[in-house]
C-alpha cells in the first residue's frame, strides 16, 4: 500500500500508471459525521493542485473537497452521489471520488505517507 499518499486536507490519492484515484480519508469522514450529499467534478474538466474539486455535506455543514494534484478528470464515482452514506462505510476503498489523468507526477512528492498522515491526523483532531 506504499503507493497511497495523503494530503493535509484529508484526501488520499492512489497512483496507478498516470491515473490517480482520489477520495477522502476515514479520519475525514469521522470528523464530518454522516455524509448526506456529495458533488463531484465534471468528467473532462481540469482541476488544479489544492483547488476545489467537489463538496461533501453532513447533516451539519458543507465542506469542500480539494484535489492534491493537478490533472484531467477521467472518471467520477456516481455511486457515492446516489448514496452518500457509502462514503462513511468505505471511504478509502470503494467510495473513491474521482480519477485524474495526472499532469505532473512530482506533485506527489510533497504529500504524506500513511505513517506521517496518521500522525498528522492525530495532532489535528478538530
Amino acid at each position, binding site marked *: 500500500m506504499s503507493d497511497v499518499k495523503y494530503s493535509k486536507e484529508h484526501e488520499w490519492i492512489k497512483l496507478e500508471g498516470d491515473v490517480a484515484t482520489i477520495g477522502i480519508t476515514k479520519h475525514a469522514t469521522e470528523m464530518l459525521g454522516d455524509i448526506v*450529499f456529495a458533488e463531484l467534478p465534471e468528467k473532462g474538466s481540469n482541476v488544479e493542485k489544492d483547488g476545489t474539486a467537489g463538496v461533501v455535506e453532513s447533516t451539519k455543514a458543507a465542506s469542500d473537497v480539494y484535489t492534491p494534484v493537478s490533472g484531467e478528470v477521467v472518471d467520477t464515482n456516481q455511486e457515492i452521489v446516489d448514496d452518500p452514506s457509502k462514503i462513511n462505510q468505505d471511504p478509502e476503498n470503494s467510495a473513491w471520488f474521482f480519477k485524474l489523468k495526472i499532469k505532473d507526477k512530482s506533485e506527489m512528492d510533497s504529500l504524506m505517507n500513511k505513517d506521517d498522515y496518521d500522525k498528522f491526523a492525530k495532532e489535528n483532531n478538530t
Partner: protein
Amino acid sequence: METKKTSLYQLHQDCNAKFVEFAGYQMPIQYSEGIVEEHKFTRNHSGIFDVSHMGQLFIYGGDELIKDLEKIFPLDLNNLKINHSKYSFLMDKDAGIQDDLIITKINEGFLIILNAACKDNDFKILKELLNEKYKMVLDENRSLIAIQGPKSSEILNDVIDGVKDLNFMSGNWFLFDNQKVYITRSGYTGEDGFEISIPNNFAEKLTRELINKGSKLAGLGARDTLRLEAGLCLYGHDLDKDKTPVEANLKWAISKERISKGDFIGSDIIIKQLNDGVSKIRVGIKPEGRIIAREKTKIFNQSDVHIGEITSGTFGPSVNGPVAMGYVENEFSKKNTKVFLEVRGKKYAANICSLPFYKKSYVKGVN
C-alpha cells in the same frame, strides 16, 4: 465568560459526546452513533435530549397575574386549564418575535420554557413588564430532560408511573426518588414525548434509568433534523425580531378571542397583518434532487427575481432527502410553486410545500 455545563455533562462525556458551545453552554451535538442514527432511533424508538440549557421560568401569582400576562401574550390564559400548556411568543410593540416559548398554567402560577439564548433577556423584559409585582424564578437548580419517540411513553411510565395518562400539551407534578418533577407531554421532534423538569442532582439518575429501559441519548444535531422535518421553528433562525407571528405562519397560536379584543403587546400590527395580509411568509421548501440549501440561501422565482431566503435547511433522515424552510414573498407562497435556490453559485429547482415534511404522531388524548 466561561461556558456552562449541564448536570448531565459527565454522562454526555461517558457516552462519547461531541460537544459544541451553544448559547453559552457546552452541549452535546451528537454521540458516537451519529446524527442520522440518533434521529432514526428517536423516530422509531425513543431518544433522550438534554435541554437543560433552556430557561425554566416560574412566575408565582393568581388572577391578577393572569390579567397581567394576557397583556403580554396573545393567549386566553384565563380559560386555560391548570396543567395545560400553550405555544406562544414574547413580542415587542411591533409584533417582532423576541422569543418563542411554551407556557403552562400550574397551581402556583405559570411555568414558561424559554430558549437558552434568550432566557436572560426574556427575564429582564418580563420583570419590567410585570413591574416586579410577582415572584419570578429563572430556575437554575432544575434540569430539563426531553424524552421523545413512540416508545417514550412506555419507557418513562416504567420509571414514573402515571405519565402515560397525560394528554398532549398538558402536564403535572410527579415524584421521582421523592423529588418533585414537573412533566409535560410535549416536545420538539414531531413525535409523542415528554419534557421533565427535575432537580439538578437527580437528572443523571433519571436519565440513566431511561437509558437502562431502552431509550438512547440524542444530541442537538438530531434535535435539529427532527424539528425541521416536523416543520417546527428554531429561534434565531426561522424566528427573530424582524419577523412577526403572522409572517412566521404561526397565527394558529394566537387566540381568536384575544385578537377581537386586541389588548396585548404587538396587537395593532398583528390585527393589521391579519386583515391586510403580509408581504413575506414562512413556507416549507423541498429541493428537487439531493442538493441541501442551508440558512441564508437565496430563493428566486422562475423569472430569476430574488423573492426570499432559506432560514433552516438540512438533510432529513426520515424524509431521506433535503428539507428546508424559509421566507418568500407572499405571492410565491402557494404550495407547489416552483422556485430556485442558489447554492455555491448555481441555481437548483425546488418546490414550496406544506409543513411538516414528516407526519407527526402526537398523542392527542388518551383518556
